[in-house]
């Protein structure tokens, strides 16, 4: 009896540790974002101060609002583009049997394994040659390298699992492949599209290397770069309050989305992995 009791306690202790460790840094960032002045430099574990001054600073001084706009524009355009190209490609890869399909899928997976730095020099040249340097288009263009293979891969695994019968019925009715995709598969695929789109959106929203390299002015930066480069006059004057406020602003929407779509996201993430 005592043994089971200890075991249960130990288990719940472990659960508590997992939850606290996961949530604490974000909680502490929120806590810090409400502090100003000298309050920043005292360590509190529980909320003591409440001031929105940091949020006001973030939104009124500098170009953080522009940065937010850039991030939203870039991430949503990239997702739209990737989904558009991926849906038809996934149909071909999942539903049509052709020689070289395995090789093609492997190549697509290989592209998603590319180290971004390996294409940085070449992309830098392309971006400059197309005159896209320091514009959001440079990012929309370059982010395709990781959003497209991912969306194709996940949508292919999803489409493969749809029953053959639905498609057969449509074929018997004389539907063309394009009609089959738009009229038969699309309605069934909304959940998959939302999940894949959301995951691709998060990846684009968080991207840093390309955003850092292909933009050079404050106005064209995306949020991660803006937050990374937020600094004071010297390294001893890092504006921690504003940094935390900005961090909370860009993270809260993501956390809310992720919590709403929990189940779907977990499915999407695991579909992104290959089966061994």
């Amino acid at each position: 009896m005592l043994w089971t009791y200890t075991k249960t306690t130990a288990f719940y202790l472990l659960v508590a540790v997992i939850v606290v460790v996961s949530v604490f840094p974000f909680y502490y960032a929120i806590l810090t974002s409400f502090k100003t002045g000298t309050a920043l430099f005292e360590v509190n574990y529980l909320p003591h101060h409440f001031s929105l001054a940091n949020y006001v600073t973030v939104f009124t001084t500098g170009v953080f609002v522009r940065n937010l706009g850039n991030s939203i524009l870039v991430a949503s355009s990239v997702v739209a583009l990737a989904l558009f190209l991926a849906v038809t490609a996934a149909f071909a890869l999942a539903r049509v049997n052709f020689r070289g399909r395995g090789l093609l899928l492997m190549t697509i997976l290989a592209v998603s394994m590319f180290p971004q730095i390996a294409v940085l020099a070449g992309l830098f040249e392309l971006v400059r040659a197309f005159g896209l340097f320091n514009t959001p288009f440079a990012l929309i263009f370059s982010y395709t390298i990781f959003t497209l293979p991912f969306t194709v891969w996940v949508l292919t695994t999803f489409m493969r699992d749809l029953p053959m019968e639905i498609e057969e019925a449509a074929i018997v009715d004389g539907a063309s492949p394009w009609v089959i995709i738009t009229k038969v598969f699309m309605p069934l695929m909304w959940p998959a599209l939302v999940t894949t789109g959301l995951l691709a959106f998060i990846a684009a929203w968080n991207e840093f290397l390309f955003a850092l390299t292909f933009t050079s002015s404050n106005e064209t930066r995306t949020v991660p770069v803006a937050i990374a480069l937020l600094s004071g006059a010297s390294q001893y004057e890092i504006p921690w309050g504003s940094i935390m406020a900005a961090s909370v602003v860009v993270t809260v929407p993501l956390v809310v989305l992720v919590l709403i779509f929990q189940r779907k996201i977990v499915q999407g993430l695991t579909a992104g992995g290959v089966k061994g």
Partner: protein
Amino acid sequence: MASTQSTIRVAPTGPGTHKRVKSELMRQRLRAAGWFLVPMLIALAIVAGWPLLRTIYFSFTNASLTNLYGAEWVGFKNYLNWTVLKSGRVVWSGLLADPAWWNAVWNTVRFAVISVTLETILGTVVALVLNAEFKGRGIVRAAILIPWAIPTIVSARMWSWMLNDQFGIINDMMMTLGLIDHKIAWTASSDTAMIAVLIVDVWKTTPFMALLILAGLQMIPRDIYEAAAIDGVHPVKTFWKVTLPLVRPALMVAVIFRLLDAMRIFDLIYVLTPNSAQTKTISVLARENLIDFDKFAYGSAESTMLFLIIALMTILYIWLGKVRFDGGDR
């Protein structure tokens, strides 16, 4: 288009069938498949294939940021080169003779191996917890998704504040608990910079690992455990003899994906420990040379090397693991 179509053929429908007669329907489907694939293939060729080839090309030239097109071919000079001085001494130069490069390689490998090992162990623990039936499981699953959802840059800054030497809560916590007797400059000190990076990476990525492992765990039929319990097998033994072997395929896939991902780490290190020789990885070093130091060709050579290393790892994995990528018929 023509080249795509020529590779698209109907797979034989069964053993020994040599039907050359394709139905009109089949032909239509194949034609459509070709058209459907072309836009994606073109897009990938432009954003991935071409830039990769250009990077490799630049690594054999003396290109600089300001002079991309006037670059001259220099062969393997960026990789390895030697000059014989009048005194007869041989001076080696290039990537493979550069201590900074080997330092970055060592940092990258060390980071990848340690972080993935820790993430696998902790991820398995979290996955086992989530696989158990208990009250509040939903809350735990939601909680572990939070580190995953937070952008890497944001988590880097959050943690650099928590790890701050003067005002950081981590130092405060450890002092209170008596674990340390003086405040540690986690991100700045050369002894702890890598530890700081590892802490943040493990915190951020363990959830992903846990979810992948959990997916593997949930595929194991429950009756196996029931059978083991009825036979009176100790739960620890059940874990080693039943759970682990059955979850191994899923675990291996997760480990490889993470390993390849860890090899290319850039953002966390760039923000958390800037200019620290103890944590500078290949990606960070390559970008520094490419953009900041205007050694474009040299940086390209470093990028190409990283690509080769990762490509080699992938090929080895596919070859050793005999992974099926075609995913055809289940």
